[in-house]
């Protein structure tokens, strides 16, 4: 059997739960060497709940030779120094989305990991859902023909209590609102299937439903590099919240991906349905989703790193969605069509 991947876990807040459950299931692949959070109480509570080992000193964890990689689940404003610390010790990095709060900072992290010769993976777990992978293969293999029209919809709901947590929905802590914190998954999944967006014209706003600094609403029209056109709608102001969806109108049929189910309406009249319905955290409880996608993603990271190849979703790939979000924000700010920065 291949040696297990020694993993450190840093950041044990709300987002850590699906990771912890996944790690418990992946004990044959991954040896969790220590879990760290600045709060001793949070650390103890997390480690007791999930039966994972506690680490009291993040520096010692970074220097531990039995640690091969780190899973970073801290808020976006507490990533850069941690990633530098672990990358500097040649530990591979798997980080929660977004990579960072701004496109430039995200590019900096990708460069830092490249300079350190470590792999950088990003937790875009929606890519690992079964229906997503079936659709990705159909599009890649040309079964559906050329993509002509794309719709990405994230009609979610968050109570004000969600944004009452200090820093939530702020640029300083989160890097923005619905785009970078919620819609980023759907937009990343879309880009993984369509390739890059060339231009976007968008409007972002904060509705009266929420007291927050950044946007809880974004809508825009996109022109893709592959010639397709599309629209996005993203909101955390759409009570009671519905599952996010992606639809692709192609030459040979149209595909709708929603709630883990892929429905394909072929032009010849056939209708095919793939996958099982699952919640995605679009309603009032942001953690109401299963953990098996996290499990698949973390397993892919562990196996890839052990094999010396990049994980399924790399930091460099994640820059595409950061560049798109930056262009959406700039378009809204400047009131005109915006070219998406290319790498």
């Amino acid at each position, binding site marked *: 059997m291949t040696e297990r991947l020694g993993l450190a876990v840093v950041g044990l807040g709300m987002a850590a739960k699906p990771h912890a459950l996944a790690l418990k299931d992946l004990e044959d692949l991954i040896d969790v060497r220590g879990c760290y959070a600045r709060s001793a109480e949070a650390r103890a509570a997390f480690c007791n709940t999930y039966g994972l080992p506690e680490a009291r000193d993040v520096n010692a964890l970074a220097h531990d030779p039995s640690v091969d990689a780190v899973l970073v689940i801290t808020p976006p404003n507490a990533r850069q120094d941690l990633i530098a610390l672990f990358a*500097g010790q040649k530990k591979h990095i798997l980080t929660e989305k977004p990579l960072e709060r701004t496109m430039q900072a995200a590019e900096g992290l990708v460069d830092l990991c490249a300079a350190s010769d470590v792999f950088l993976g990003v937790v875009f777990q929606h890519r690992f859902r079964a229906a997503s992978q079936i659709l990705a293969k159909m599009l890649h293999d040309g079964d559906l023909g050329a993509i002509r029209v794309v719709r990405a919809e994230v009609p979610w709901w968050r109570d004000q209590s969600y944004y009452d947590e200090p820093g939530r929905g702020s640029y300083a802590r989160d890097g923005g609102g619905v785009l970078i914190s919620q819609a980023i998954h759907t937009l990343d999944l879309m880009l993984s299937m369509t*390739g890059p967006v060339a231009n976007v014209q968008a409007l972002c706003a904060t509705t009266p439903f929420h007291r927050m600094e950044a946007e809880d609403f974004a809508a825009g029209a996109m022109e893709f590099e592959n010639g397709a056109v599309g629209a996005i709608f993203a909101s955390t102001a759409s009570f009671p919240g519905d599952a996010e969806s992606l639809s692709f109108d192609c030459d040979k049929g149209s595909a709708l991906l929603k709630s883990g189910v892929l429905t394909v309406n072929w032009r010849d009249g056939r209708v095919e349905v793939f996958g099982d319905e699952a919640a995605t955290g679009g309603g009032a409880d942001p953690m109401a989703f299963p953990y098996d996608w996290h499990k698949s993603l973390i397993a892919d990271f562990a196996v890839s790193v052990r094999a010396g190849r990049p994980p399924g979703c790399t930091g460099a790939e994640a820059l595409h969605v950061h560049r798109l979000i930056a262009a959406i924000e700039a378009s809204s700010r400047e009131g005109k069509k915006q070219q998406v920065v290319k790498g």
Partner: protein
Amino acid sequence: MTEIKLKQVRKSYGEVEVLHGIDLTVESGEFCVFVGPSGCGKSTLLRIIAGLDDVTSGAIEIDGEAVNNVSASARGLAMVFQSYALYPHMSVYKNMAFGLENSKMPKAEIDRRVRDAAEMLQITDYLDRRPKALSGGQRQRVAIGRAIVREPKAFLLDEPLSNLDAELRVTMRKELAALHASIGDTMIYVTHDQTEAMTLADKIVVLQDGRIEQTGAPLDLYNNPQNAFVAGFIGSPRMNLIEVTANKATEGWTLSAANLSVPVPEIAGLTDGMRCTLGIRPEHLRVSTDDTGHMTCKVAFTEQLGGETYLYCDVEGLPQITVHQPGQLPVVKGQQLALNFDLSEMHLFDADGQVIVNRVAG
């Protein structure tokens, strides 16, 4: 000394191909600059050479050995990033030494390399500081120093000066040229700035939409652009490009457009009524001493810099024309001027933008 060769390199993201079969040889010891507008594929190409991105197809060779399946760290190249990619929690010394310490090099040798590089880059006084305490230019020097101490086969520099202010960019440009002259290693440098390309390169590779438009020495590209894109991209201010029609004359041809008529001698490849693009650099336009010329225009505004003068002229039915003349010209806004074209420096491109001739006469 290292030669880097690319053979039919292609790269796709999903359905979209962003590099379309790149063939290129970077000679040993050459300072090669990849230049082009945003999205042309220059950074992607550099990352492919570095081993940070895979190719979809094609081959990369370093000193004759295929490295497609060789990891980034094993290629022996050193990359300098636009973002510097320094460790914020380490001192400058440690940032430069760190990669060598991991390779188990003796401490005395590490110390020698770091101090030599620091002296070369004038950052010896900052070795104990952390990156946050340095200016952008100093951080970039540290990033370059970190590459130098590795004594790599070749240096790969990705827009290394883009985050610096204009004055510092000029200073660093000179220092990079001096550094290359001093160490003589192969360097590949990516920039969107044609001035950086012209001033630094032994060889410029102009890219657009994932294709090489032209490769050559800076003045070769300037004097002999093979297409209208390169003609317009290389040179500042840019070449004046004017849509014209070629009409057969008794002797030779007449190139005509609104308010423009240029008689030229016989040119192979022209046909009567053919649409072409005339290219003339701002310094190859002459202000007529009388009222006759190839074109008449109205001065929209002037830039009098003392040693040289720029005129920006409106011509009805044509794009604005830029004129560059040495010395001081007694010309004012609104003045009518006649301009003559230096035919020995005039370029002509066909409807597809490909060069017909780079010196219409002489």
